[in-house]
């Protein structure tokens, strides 16, 4: 028997129920529920369309009658839905007439319109896309309008910010430019960046006495006037703080430039095509502040320049004075060396002639006097020579070179021994002391110091003179010591003052100028000298020669000499 495929009783009764019209979907055909669903869908759709920030509009292709539109379109067109539906799109405004013209020319195209919003007065840009569509046999245009104002203005703000920074950098690099040309450039930038048709910039002079006003009309030249501060009416009164500014007033924007809490200048812009925006205010405020920093820097540089010029002038004048003084001094010493010595030579020469020619007839006492006359004149000659040396050293430039101080000391000692034979002096000189100094001058130093040591040990049976060096790692100190007469430390300071002597010339000969000369030479080398002594026990002189290399100042000075072009 084949398998039966009958349906069960339960299934049959369920089927029967549904056939009789009691199933879940078993209702009489009615369009209402479906309609309601569709209507809800439509309402939802319209709600969605009204929420989005894109304008959507349906126009009758034949004549541009607005068939339907969403809320955003109403906002863009500036009207209510009830008014707009049935109206002709092109009749809404001049703007829509222009849009419609363009739409008709280019089908299915994206076009961008920049307009000034009639109600708000601010510029706006829209992007319009049109599509052809057919519903129920009728031709329509679906128009999609996107407000791209903020997108465009963001782009423009970016471009403007770049332009602004470039401009600021440009004016900050205007070297050698006058304050006037810096301010003129800044004013032109402000006008062009804000798309104003003109502008003014008022600046108070640093002493607050003058008020300079720069005027600029787009495409023209910057003109300016200077007038006493306080005579320029209400505009200027802003600067005195009588009137607050910073917000656009009608078609004009006044912006202060502040230095601390003081208003120091005003920028005024006029007749922008649209309204002045926050971006204008922000950018021009920024420009103003940057400009003022540039002006301040410029003024500071100007001041510094004047000061430098003045200083240079002063130095030059001084130098000239000094050169004149030097020339006078040279002339003086020249005279001294000639004119003072000539009579002395006559005194000495004729005293000797008297003694030679009439010696036999002169009493012994007269001959003694003549001898004293000659000694005195010779001593005066020595004095004059020493003075000349001192003055010459003061005037002479150092000529440094590297040489062995030890060798130079031995040379000097050998010369002294040659000129003063018959003495037994133990001289110890440290080897390999090398210095960078003016050899001729250092020779004078050593001649004096060794000469003194030699002289003051005259009365010692066993004279000892040592010359050595000591270094602390930075500075080398040279030391000449003897076991001679020494001196009282009370008068140590006086040692290096010209003509001051600690011994009578009867005790030890000398002019009292030698150590002053030594001190001067050491000073010229950038070093120092001091002396220690104990009466009857000896004296020690310590000196340094400064750095082994030239001092920068010296080099600079030398370089200037060598290369006047500098």
């Amino acid at each position, binding site marked *: 028997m084949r398998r039966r495929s009958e349906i069960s009783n339960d299934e049959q009764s369920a089927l029967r129920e549904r056939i009789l019209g009691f199933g879940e979907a078993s209702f009489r055909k009615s369009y209402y529920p479906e309609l309601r669903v569709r209507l809800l869908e439509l309402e939802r759709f319209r709600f969605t369309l009204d929420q989005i920030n894109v304008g959507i509009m349906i126009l009758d292709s034949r004549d541009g009658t607005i068939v339907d539109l969403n809320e955003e379109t109403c906002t863009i067109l500036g009207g209510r839905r009830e008014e707009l539906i049935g109206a002709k799109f092109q009749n809404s405004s001049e703007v829509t007439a222009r849009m419609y013209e363009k739409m008709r020319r280019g089908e299915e195209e994206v076009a961008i319109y920049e307009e000034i919003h009639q109600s708000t007065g601010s510029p706006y840009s829209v992007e319009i896309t049109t599509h052809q569509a057919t519903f129920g046999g009728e031709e329509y245009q679906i128009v999609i309008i996107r407000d791209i104002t903020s997108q465009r203005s963001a782009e423009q703000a970016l471009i403007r910010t770049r332009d602004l920074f470039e401009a600021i950098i440009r004016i900050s690099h205007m070297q050698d430019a006058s304050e006037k040309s810096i301010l003129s450039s800044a004013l032109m930038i402000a006008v062009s960046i804000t798309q104003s048709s003109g502008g003014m910039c008022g600046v108070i002079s640093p002493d607050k006495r003058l008020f300079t006003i720069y005027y600029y009309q787009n495409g023209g030249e910057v003109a300016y006037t200077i007038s006493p501060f306080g005579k320029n009416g209400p505009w200027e009164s802003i600067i005195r703080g009588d009137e607050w500014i910073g917000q656009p007033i009608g078609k004009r924007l006044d912006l202060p430039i502040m230095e601390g809490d003081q208003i120091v200048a005003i920028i005024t812009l006029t007749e922008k095509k649209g309204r002045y925006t926050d971006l204008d205010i922000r950018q021009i405020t920024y420009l103003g502040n940057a400009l003022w920093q540039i002006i301040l820097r410029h003024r500071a540089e100007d001041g510094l320049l004047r000061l430098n010029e003045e200083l240079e002038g002063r130095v030059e004048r001084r130098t000239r004075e000094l050169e004149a003084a030097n020339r006078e001094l040279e002339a003086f010493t020249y005279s001294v060396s000639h004119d003072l010595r*000539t009579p002395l030579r006559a005194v000495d*020469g004729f005293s*000797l002639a008297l003694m030679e020619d009439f010696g036999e007839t002169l009493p012994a006492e007269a001959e003694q006097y003549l001898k004293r006359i000659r000694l005195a004149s010779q001593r005066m000659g020595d004095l004059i020579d020493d003075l000349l040396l001192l003055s010459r050293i003061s005037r002479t430039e150092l000529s440094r070179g590297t040489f062995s101080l030890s060798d130079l000391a031995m040379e000097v000692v050998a010369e002294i021994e040659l000129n003063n034979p018959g003495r037994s002096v133990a001289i110890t000189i440290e080897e390999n002391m090398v210095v960078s100094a003016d050899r001729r001058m250092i020779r004078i130093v050593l001649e004096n110091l060794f000469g003194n040591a030699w002289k003051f040990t005259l009365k010692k049976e066993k004279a000892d003179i040592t010359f050595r060096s000591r270094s602390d790692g930075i500075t080398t100190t040279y030391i000449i010591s003897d076991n001679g007469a020494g001196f009282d430390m009370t008068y140590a300071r006086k040692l290096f003052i010209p003509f001051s002597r600690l011994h009578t010339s009867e005790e030890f000969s000398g002019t009292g100028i030698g150590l002053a000369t030594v001190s001067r030479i050491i000073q010229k080398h950038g070093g120092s000298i001091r002396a220690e002594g104990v009466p009857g026990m000896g004296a020690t002189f310590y000196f340094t020669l400064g750095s082994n290399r030239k001092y920068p100042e010296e080099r600079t000075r030398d370089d200037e000499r060598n290369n006047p072009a500098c």
Partner: protein
Amino acid sequence: MTKGTILLVEDNRDDELLTLRAFSKNRIANPIAVVRDGEEALDYLFARGSFAERDTQDQPTIILLDLKLPKLNGHEVLKAIREEETTKLIPVIILTTSLEDEDVIRSYELGANSYIRKPVDFSEFVSAVQMLGTYWLLLNKSPQSR
């Protein structure tokens, strides 16, 4: 052999006298012509002015020239001597009180043959003149005398 003239250019009478004394003490017997300033020295050498009658062929054997002179100074005189054909070979000894380096260097540059500093001590001066006489008058034959 006649001894050549020594031209002494010296404005100071004391120094002139002492110089002449130093010559005699050194037994230098050459005729000595003395002029008082630079201009006079050149007049003498170039036979001008008060010396117009002089024979320019008869030039001094040696010139002792002080530097500090009225009118033309010693250096100017020396320069003129060395520029003039008739005098440019005459030995010129600078005799001065100045020991300024510049004076010495300039003198040699301008063609001085020797430079003697006049010391205050006359004895020293006498020995210096002695050296000068020995060298320039006796040993160093002037080109002119050849």
